[in-house]
């Protein structure tokens, strides 16, 4: 190589780092230096093709070519075989990154920049449409912004799927009770559902999009203070968000005078402390106020009496991240994706025992089977898939007979399942569903805030009853008791923790009854 340096992209998101990307970047730099190859290493986010991470990309005149999964042991042979010229002889060659079918088949709106840009580069962000939505919003009235969000059909991506525009309207119309007139934008980044990582990817791959979305929300409802409530289990996201916020402030995209408009918006990251319940919005608000994360009764809605008793928008990362696209390309452009009342795209997260796990952003309407088989290519173990849990630890376990259900909010709720935050966890045929049902109750024991008795006590009784069933003690009577207990939890809990913990339990009992049968003497079922 002569003269100009070649741009090489090595991701810095959690999964890539967990697979050795930090050491890879260091050794790659050293190896290139030793060979006198001039390279410029860019630490990008991940594109979400996690089975290929660390995926290294090289910029060539034809586009960015990918290699993966790359380990330190591959560096010399990759450089030797013309990687920096984009040559494709090496076994790890993936061709043009954009042409990888897994990626090409997607409809990336929210994740359009993920893995392409340097997450903390303001220049990169703006060269890829960044802040175009904010500039449009600055020229609009608050009501016009809210109307655009309503027209987009965007529904909360945290799990409850409440229309975002209607929530914003409530906050816009609400009058603060304190003298300062403060309203708040709170981003729920307590992504606690196992099998989900879309929020993390937004924050690690494209944090300015979230910052922009929150700033627009502030303009829309008249809030000047925002908080990102981030789970402490995400140290990489924490670091990247703080870097991005500092840079955005320095460049005038946050602060007292956004882009010279006279509007103010301050943003701060607050760390959670390992409590799943704090993903529930009222528990989150309590935690932000410095208290135990006890769930509040609703009403009053947080939109009217939220953080510190003031009108507050609480939105999930993905909901806020969808806003810049809507404000830039228009509400209709967003609503053109999707089906029925599920408009736009949903980033699905394929996880667990899956060969090709990763992030798949698509309009609603694909089936679970297409996701698992076409994208995921089956299980990691190579054994048949048996159960799929969609929507996190409070989501039902779905048997194969349900895998042709279209992935949209209404179709899922019609069969007693939830899409939630779009997490899809695949289990192979070695799974013991009575063990999974027990875990659901055990998880509720560990994570219940303790406010409602059915959740606090019922979950402990649930573990005990399932243990008795597993031990074949009074089986029939205990199964009936478990059914009653589940009904009590569903009917008698304030929030989804107690109210939905029974979903995975009931679905396991209903669709996988053989796992609750007495074990035969030889240990088989």
């Amino acid at each position: 190589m002569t003269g100009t340096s070649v741009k090489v992209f090595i991701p810095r998101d959690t999964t890539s780092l967990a697979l050795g990307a930090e050491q890879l970047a260091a050794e790659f730099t050293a190896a290139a230096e030793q060979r006198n190859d001039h390279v410029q290493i860019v630490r990008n986010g991940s594109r979400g093709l996690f089975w290929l991470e660390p995926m290294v990309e090289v910029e060539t005149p034809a586009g960015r070519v990918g290699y993966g999964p790359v380990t330190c042991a591959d560096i010399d042979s990759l450089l030797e075989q013309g990687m920096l010229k984009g040559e494709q002889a090496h076994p790890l060659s993936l061709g043009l990154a954009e042409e990888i079918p897994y990626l090409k088949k997607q409809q990336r709106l929210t994740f359009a920049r993920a893995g392409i840009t340097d997450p903390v580069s303001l220049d990169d962000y703006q060269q890829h449409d960044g802040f175009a939505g904010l500039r449009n919003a600055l020229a609009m009235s608050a009501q016009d912004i809210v109307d655009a969000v309503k027209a987009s059909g965007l529904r909360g991506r945290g799990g409850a799927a409440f229309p975002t525009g209607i929530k914003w309207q409530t906050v816009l119309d609400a009058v603060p009770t304190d003298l300062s007139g403060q309203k708040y934008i709170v981003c729920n980044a307590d992504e606690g559902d196992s099998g989900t990582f879309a929020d993390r990817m937004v924050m690690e791959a494209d944090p300015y999009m979230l910052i922009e979305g929150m700033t627009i929300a502030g303009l829309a409802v008249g809030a000047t203070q925002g908080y990102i409530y981030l789970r402490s289990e995400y140290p990489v996201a924490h670091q990247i968000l703080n870097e991005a916020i500092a840079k955005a402030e320095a460049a005038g995209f946050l602060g007292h005078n956004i882009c010279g408009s006279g509007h103010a918006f301050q943003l701060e990251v607050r760390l959670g402390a390992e409590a799943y319940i704090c993903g529930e919005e009222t528990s989150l608000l309590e935690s932000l106020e410095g208290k135990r994360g006890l769930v509040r009764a609703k009403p009053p809605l947080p939109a009217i009496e939220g953080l510190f008793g003031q009108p507050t928008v609480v939105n999930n990362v993905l909901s806020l991240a969808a806003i810049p696209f809507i404000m830039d390309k228009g509400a209709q452009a967003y609503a053109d994706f999707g089906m029925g009342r599920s408009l736009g795209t949903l980033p699905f997260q394929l996880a667990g025992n899956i060969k090709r796990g990763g992030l798949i952003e698509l309009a609603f309407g694909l089936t679970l089977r297409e996701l698992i088989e076409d994208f995921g290519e089956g299980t990691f173990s190579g054994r048949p898939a048996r159960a799929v849990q969609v929507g996190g630890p409070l989501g039902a376990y779905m048997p194969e007979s349900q895998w042709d259900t279209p992935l949209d909010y209404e179709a899922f709720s019609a069969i007693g399942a939830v899409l939630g935050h779009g997490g899809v966890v695949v289990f192979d045929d070695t799974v013991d569903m009575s063990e999974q049902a027990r875990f659901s109750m055990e998880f509720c024991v560990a994570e219940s805030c303790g406010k409602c008795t059915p959740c606090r006590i019922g979950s402990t009784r649930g573990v005990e009853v399932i243990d008795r069933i597993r031990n074949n003690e009074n089986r029939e009577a205990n199964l009936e008791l478990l059914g009653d207990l589940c009904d009590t939890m569903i009917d008698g809990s304030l929030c989804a923790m107690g109210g939905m913990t029974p979903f995975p339990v009931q679905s396991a009992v209903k669709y996988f009854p053989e796992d609750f049968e007495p074990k035969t003497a030889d240990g088989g079922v």
Partner: protein
Amino acid sequence: MTTIAFDEQREQRVAGIIEGLKHKPGALLPILHGIQDSEGYVPESSVVMIAAELNLSRAEVHGVISFYHHFRTTPPGRHIVQICAAEACQARGARQLEAYAQERLGVEYHQTTADREITLEKVFCLGNCACGPSVRVDDEIVARVSNERFDQLVNELTTQSLEVK
């Protein structure tokens, strides 16, 4: 005597952290994080200080500390190792890894090895759900942890600290 000096230094550090953060709205969690990041845990002596500065009762501060899994009130080992015990990692063998880790280290969850090197904790989801089982070692997350990889991690941790000594 050195213990007293050490306690005084710690008290000064804690006082500095509280002073720097107490004016934030909802300051308690940031303060507890600050103290734990600095001291490794939230010492009992700091509860009184926080309560006084935030105009809360000691019971209220204690109630918050005990609500969250993250905060600890006793000193941890030199490193904290967390095993992800949530569903996506279960589907990839986390239950087996949990058992192996406890056996290998000779401790149960929330305990510290006799040499004070490693405190073992469980965690529900590190967001690395496509490449489990996942383990967090201090602030680093490690993917696809087999028993062999776990041994390797433990060896790296214990070897490094020997070099430091």
